[in-house]
């Protein structure tokens, strides 16, 4: 017993047994692939003739069987016998070369080209590529090399292949790529395909794959990748935006402007700020765009935003790197010239420390970090005209030893080129930031503003006292070193 199918040959219907159908299908497919679009008529005419012959054999009322088809094929002639009029009995087999197939490409045609060479469908090549990337990045790493390195390596491999494998541009190259004999018929076929957009192509490549398994897997991968990219891109943009806004609200100054307070070897920091922001934002935007495209598989507009974003990002990143390298040049000469200055401290049981705010800045919020034996203070002040100043107090360290008499050792570390600061280190008088009167030690801040920028000077104070001396901080908070629990104020109001 055999399965029967219904077919139509140029509009005439026949019932045909399955094995006969397969034979006929094979025959017609071979013919169809031999004749390109311009000669599609030929196959139609042949189909018509087949119908005629079948009717002659009474198949209007009977099921078409294998023997009928077999007979008819010998009457009509096997495809190899229906030769072209130039009469070559068999065109020579062309040696296969590896090319990139840019008419069927997603990114650069690497997988398509490799697939054509090995006779594997390009979709499977891509799946293999991605799966290899994913599986090699198991938590343990392969041979001790981890996630980022393997993904990076594969990406690099892809780019290398992209560069070294030539593009199949001419028709003869395309024929060599697939191992097909060069033929006038092929020219029409190849040029009819035309270039396609990456997003739709990825989607369509999946659906065209030989075998539904490949296409389903591919579509799932596409969609998942799309979702991940969109979410990441979006999160990146939102987080940096929210972060900057939060910082601004909390401290009263935008994070980007902090650069203005540092003495740099650069007149205008605008380039630095813009290129830096863009270097971060553009990849996020790019990911967002790519993700949405993948998820919803739509064609990108003609000006190819993906490419535009990438090139712009590249330019920004380069500008940013160059400007920051140039701007921070003064700070590379880590010339830590430590100048020490000494001040005497009376030998008392209790010593008091106050850190008053500079004149006119009493309303500023102080940021304090006080531990057993260290004190770090700084604050930010905006005056009525929204000019911002940073006040940084020298770091206070309390060192206990019983041998020497109590004293203060003030150190000035300078880690920038001498050209940046006007006064030589030794000229800065100790009294400008530390004063000792009786048992009261006053510490004053160094104030930086847009006019008076930070230039690499860092002051620190070491207070050497015997074990028995108690050191108490009175201003801005009450704190006893060594006794009170560590205190840290965040960026919050007093």
């Amino acid at each position, binding site marked *: 017993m055999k399965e029967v199918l219904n077919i139509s040959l140029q509009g005439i219907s026949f019932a045909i047994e399955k094995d006969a159908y397969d034979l006929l299908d094979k025959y017609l497919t071979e013919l169809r692939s031999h004749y390109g679009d311009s000669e599609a008529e030929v196959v139609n005419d042949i189909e*018509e003739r087949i119908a005629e012959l079948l009717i002659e054999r009474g198949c209007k009322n009977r099921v078409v069987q294998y023997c009928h088809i077999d007979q008819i094929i010998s009457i009509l002639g096997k495809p190899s*016998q229906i030769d072209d009029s130039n009469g070559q009995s068999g065109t020579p087999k062309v040696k296969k070369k590896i090319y990139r197939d840019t008419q069927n490409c997603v990114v650069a045609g690497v997988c398509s080209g490799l697939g054509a060479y090995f006779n594997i469908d390009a979709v499977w090549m891509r799946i293999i590529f991605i799966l290899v990337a994913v599986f090699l990045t198991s938590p343990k790493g392969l041979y001790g090399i981890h996630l980022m390195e393997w993904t990076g390596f594969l990406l690099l491999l892809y780019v290398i292949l992209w560069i070294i494998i030539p593009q199949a541009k001419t028709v003869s190259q395309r024929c060599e790529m697939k191992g097909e004999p060069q033929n006038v018929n092929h020219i029409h076929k190849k040029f009819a395909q035309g270039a396609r957009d990456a997003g739709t192509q990825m989607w369509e490549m999946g659906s065209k794959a030989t075998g539904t398994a490949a296409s389903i897997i591919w579509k799932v991968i596409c969609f998942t990748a799309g979702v991940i990219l969109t979410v990441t891109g979006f999160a990146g943009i939102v987080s940096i935006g929210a972060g900057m806004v939060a910082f601004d609200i909390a401290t009263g100054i935008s994070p980007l402007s902090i650069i203005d307070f540092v003495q740099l070897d650069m007149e205008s920091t605008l380039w630095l700020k813009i290129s830096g922001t863009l270097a971060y934002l553009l990849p996020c935007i790019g990911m967002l765009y790519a993700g949405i495209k993948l998820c919803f598989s739509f064609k990108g507009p003609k000006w190819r935003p993906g490419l535009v974003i990438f090139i712009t990002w590249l330019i920004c990143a380069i500008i940013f790197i160059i400007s920051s390298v140039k701007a921070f040049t003064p700070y590379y000469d880590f010339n830590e010239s430590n100048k020490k200055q000494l001040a005497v401290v009376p030998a008392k049981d209790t010593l008091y420390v106050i850190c008053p705010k500079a004149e006119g800045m009493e309303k500023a919020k102080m940021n304090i970090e006080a531990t057993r034996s260290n004190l770090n203070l700084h604050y930010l002040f905006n005056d009525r005209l929204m000019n911002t100043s940073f006040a940084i107090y020298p770091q206070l360290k309390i060192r206990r030893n019983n041998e020497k008499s109590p004293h203060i050792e003030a150190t000035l570390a300078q880690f920038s080129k001498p050209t940046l600061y006007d006064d030589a280190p030794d000229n800065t008088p100790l009294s400008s930031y530390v004063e000792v009167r009786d048992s009261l030690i006053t510490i004053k801040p160094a104030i930086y503003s847009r006019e008076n920028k930070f230039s690499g000077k860092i002051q620190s104070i070491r207070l050497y006292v015997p074990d028995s001396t108690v050191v108490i901080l009175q201003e801005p908070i009450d704190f006893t070193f060594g006794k009170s629990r560590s205190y840290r104020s965040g960026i919050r109001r007093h």
Partner: protein
Amino acid sequence: MDTNVDNIKSQMRKGVLEYCILSTLRRNDAYASALIGELKEAQMIVVEGTLYPLLTRLKNQGMLSYRWEESPQGPPRKYYSLTEIGRASLAEMDAAWNEVVASVEFIKNR
């Protein structure tokens, strides 16, 4: 040996097949199946399939045209006829054929 001769025979036939098609249509228009019948009778073709690509090519070159005609057995069929260009080409091919035959006979009878 035989296959070599067969090859050459087949090559010879292929060379004149288009000429024969045009020639058959000289007096009457015809369906594809009728053409096949005549050419088979003349033992010019062995497999029918060789005809179809040639018919299409001749049509694409403008030497043939066809019209659709109803047939008793089902869908309409193509009814081929020579165009003016076809007739002109045919005349030239007649001359060419005579030349070739003369040349070959000349060599054969030396």
